[in-house]
């Protein structure tokens, strides 16, 4: 065995204190192969046994969209920011399913792998991270379907790819932050697993998914914009139709996301030491 090949040539110091943030990040990088393996497991388990396979990913927003179409779409003339109705709905639902899916699975990622945590060492953050990456793969599949929906509904405007990339990147960071936070808290307080879905339900109605944020009264707009999903969903849709991004609301989303990320990383690192004792 070639010892120089290894990440552990330097002695490992085992002590009570938390390793530095930098050391943790370096370690995450050395474990990147395990991350990919965990992502592969996630995807394989989810899709291997259903014959619908990959199409299943897009089926959920498509069915939901059809439902909404049936209930609201025909009667109401809700504003859709100048987008074709299906494009408006599908894009909102797609982002929401990515975000809520990452949180729903992410919060359980540590508890569900208690067996691993109690018996093997690896950076625990890999488990919630693997969920986010797996959901990103889903999102990529849904993007292909979105392109199809756009073609079918004669969407004429050309999307701004940098705009899409930025909003998806921030949304991913936000999902990661909330995933890390809820996963860590769930280890200590097991009823978090029941609180999160309720919170998600509320958040869904507080986000411009099936309605446009232009419907929100101006007096409440500032409070509404504190929800980072508002700036991100609006931004994504603007980028989708090549409109200019609303920079202030996007910046606000970035600030909220970064704040959550710092909180999440701090809490996760704080609880990391005792996961194996509690999980």
């Amino acid at each position, binding site marked *: 065995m070639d010892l120089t090949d290894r990440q552990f040539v330097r002695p490992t110091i085992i002590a009570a204190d938390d390793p530095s943030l930098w050391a943790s990040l370096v370690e995450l990088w050395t474990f990147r192969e*395990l991350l990919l393996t965990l992502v592969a497991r996630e995807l394989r388990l989810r899709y291997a046994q259903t014959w619908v396979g990959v199409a299943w990913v897009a089926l959920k927003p498509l069915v939901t969209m059809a439902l909404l179409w049936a209930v609201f779409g025909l009667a109401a003339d809700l504003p859709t920011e100048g987008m074709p109705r299906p494009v408006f709905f599908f894009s909102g639902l797609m982002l929401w399913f990515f975000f809520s899916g990452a949180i729903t699975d992410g919060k359980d990622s540590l508890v569900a792998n208690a067996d691993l945590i109690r018996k093997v060492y690896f950076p625990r953050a890999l488990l919630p991270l693997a969920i986010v990456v797996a959901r990103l793969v889903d999102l990529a599949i849904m993007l292909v379907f979105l392109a199809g929906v756009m073609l079918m509904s004669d969407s004429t405007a050309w999307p701004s790819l940098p705009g899409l990339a930025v909003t998806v990147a921030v949304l991913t960071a936000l999902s990661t932050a909330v995933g890390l936070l809820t996963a860590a808290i769930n280890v200590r307080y097991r009823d978090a697993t029941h609180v999160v879905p309720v919170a998600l339900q509320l958040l869904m109605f507080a986000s411009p998914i099936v309605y446009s944020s232009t419907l929100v009264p101006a007096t409440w707009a500032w409070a509404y914009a504190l929800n980072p999903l508002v700036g991100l969903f609006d931004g994504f849709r603007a980028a989708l139709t090549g409109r200019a991004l609303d920079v202030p609301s996007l910046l606000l989303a970035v600030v909220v996301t970064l704040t959550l990320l710092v909180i999440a990383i701090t809490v996760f690192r704080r609880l990391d030491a005792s996961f194996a004792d509690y999980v």
Partner: protein
Amino acid sequence: MSTIILAEALSKQFDLAPRAAYGTFRDQLALAVRSPRRWWRRSDTEPLWALRDVSFAIRAGSVTGLIGRNGAGKSTLLKILSRITRPTTGRAVVHGRIASLLEVGTGFHPELSGRHNVFLNGAILGMTRREIAANFDAIVAFADVERFIDTPVKFYSTGMYLRLAFAVAAHLEAEILAVDEVLAVGDLLFQRKCMGKMADVARSGRTVLLVSHNLAAIQTLSDDVLVLDRGRLVGHGPPGETVAQFLDQLQGREGGEASSDLRALPRQSRAHAGLVEGLLNQRPLVASHTLVSGHDLAFELVVDLPEPRRQCFVGINIEDDFGVRLWSLHSHWEIPRFDLQTGAHRVRCRVPVPPLVSGQYHIGLEVGAGTERLDLLERVATLHVVQTGHGGTGETPGREHGYILAPADWSVVSTDGTPVSPEA
């Protein structure tokens, strides 16, 4: 040789009831409302030191056995060294990668095929994809599951599952291998394979940390033995004497809490009716005794009947946890029945114990006269039988092979008289 693991005053504290109480938001909230001060302090649970000031050094390339009773801190120590949990105080320096085999099959997923599980499990245990791919055929061959490698492991038999799991772990290329009770896995043939693999690992220059209740395996495989007792390191040295010292400690501890008085013990039918006092191997009988398989049992009983009886006998029996009687000793099978007057009589019995398979057994006593049973004490003492090697191979069969290890004399020669060399 160089030191590969250095532990300095490692301690680990657990809160005794962190999980049961206040493990939910709801409980936290309730506590905060009911008694804000306690909620704030949060230190009302009694701490338990699972490990206390444990220091030692392990040489590179050695096999170190870790022994101790249940709850002595063996697994906690392994978990700290393999970084699964952090120490409360103290530190350790480890030169190299530790592959922990706290239990085989970690991370196996029933829905995935054997092939996918090998890669998943390997990655979790710290192997790179390249290493797993390079070892894949060897792993599958070792586990003997070639035909089923693309079948989901939920269709595997328990034996196949365990074999595959151990095979992955055994092919880890870590500098240090931490093994906990893995030797108990599988059938005899596979156990032998595991022992062989373990010896290979040790010979290949890797360091092994071995936790086992199987003292024979510890004695055969280790170069060095650590003894833990209630979180503290109480012994460290060469296997022979350290294991012996550990056995002595077990006996000593048990002797202290024991009693030789049989009068107050619960009887099935009536109050005390004859058996007054008992000693086993000169220790109070009412206790748990540790016995090395193949050694003698010496009973010394005091019988005092409330009235004179004729044609008396004394019986001793041994049964397992499930009440299966292994054997009985009745005095009248060996010596004539005797007449007893009132007053104390001492009855002695020495018996070489048939070499029993390791495990827990129970001793019962009775006194009878003619066909009448005068006194009966069931499960008056517990016997922990420990094997320290049967025949010298270090292999110790489990209960599934029966209770008795008959010391047999085997030989294998070719029919033309040339000796057969030992297995490679």
